[in-house]
């Protein structure tokens, strides 16, 4: 049977680079003996891991904001600059079911009169978001 030398060479190289059987203490000892400042390396690794986690959180938050921005205005149109009367009119239209049963249900037990303009605007935006179910 002929030898598959490519496979044999690969197996040999893999065998010596395979360190899955080594414990942290073994690795620390080996690297120290090879002149590596293991503590410096590990503190850099810790910092890289923390930085990665923070980047991940920032990315998730940016994606959530982008999603919210896309949803904004899909139900009531742009709420920016709308007068109080216009905002209350939207609320009443929603209460009356002009924007669907979901929006109508969400207006129940809510007094628009008790909210200031910004709160009313923000509440209508919340309804949009919740109504989209995303």
């Amino acid at each position: 049977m002929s030898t598959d030398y490519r496979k044999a060479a690969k197996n040999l190289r893999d065998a010596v680079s395979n360190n899955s059987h080594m414990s942290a203490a073994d690795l620390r000892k080996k690297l120290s003996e090879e002149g590596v400042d293991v503590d410096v390396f590990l503190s850099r690794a810790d910092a890289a891991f923390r930085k990665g986690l923070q980047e991940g959180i920032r990315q998730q938050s940016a994606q959530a904001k982008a999603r919210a921005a896309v949803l904004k205005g899909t139900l009531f149109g742009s709420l920016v600059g709308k007068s109080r009367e216009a905002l209350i009119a939207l609320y009443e239209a929603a209460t009356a079911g002009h924007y669907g049963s979901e929006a109508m249900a969400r207006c129940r037990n809510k007094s628009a009169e008790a909210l200031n303009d910004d709160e009313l605007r923000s509440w209508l935006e919340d309804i949009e978001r919740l109504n989209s179910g995303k």
Partner: protein
Amino acid sequence: MSDEYIEYLKDDESRQEVALRLFDYARELLNWQEHQMLPGGIDPQDVVLEVIKRVASGKRKLNDRFPYEAQLKGMVKSIISKLFEKTDAQLDNIPVDEDEVGYAKVEKALGVGGSDSAFEAAEYSERFVKLVENHPKVEKDPDLGLVILAYIDGARVPREAAEETGIPINRVYEYNRSLQKILNEVKAQMK
């Protein structure tokens, strides 16, 4: 789940063990000499830190179907290969796709893996294996020869080589260190 592995890495001891293993792997892969640099003034430590950062941020998702550590080693290997292939590559811009099949060969990138031609690569491998088998240290120590044969036949770790040959595991660990030196000598011989 990939998220569970991130939780695992949040534990200091677990994370440090993985980091050490990846760093050792990167150095072994390159037959690393201190003060040597990869293209762009990068060293194996930077590559390992980049892999850790990518996994922690979720920029690179891990595939649940394969062992996580093997995937991390694959990323290390892939990034190193690409650094050699494209010497102006920036470390944080090197793509390592989740579904990347058959990472570029580091040996080829380092110019020690023979040519692209399958025939020549086979010839290169044959010469490589024969030089290892006929190395003076191997000829002098039949047990070392048996361990090498066990690896050639597919033993992946010292425990398997020990089971295959009946040689005590601690002795196999010592042979592994000898084998590492032999491979480095043979690689240098073949450049």
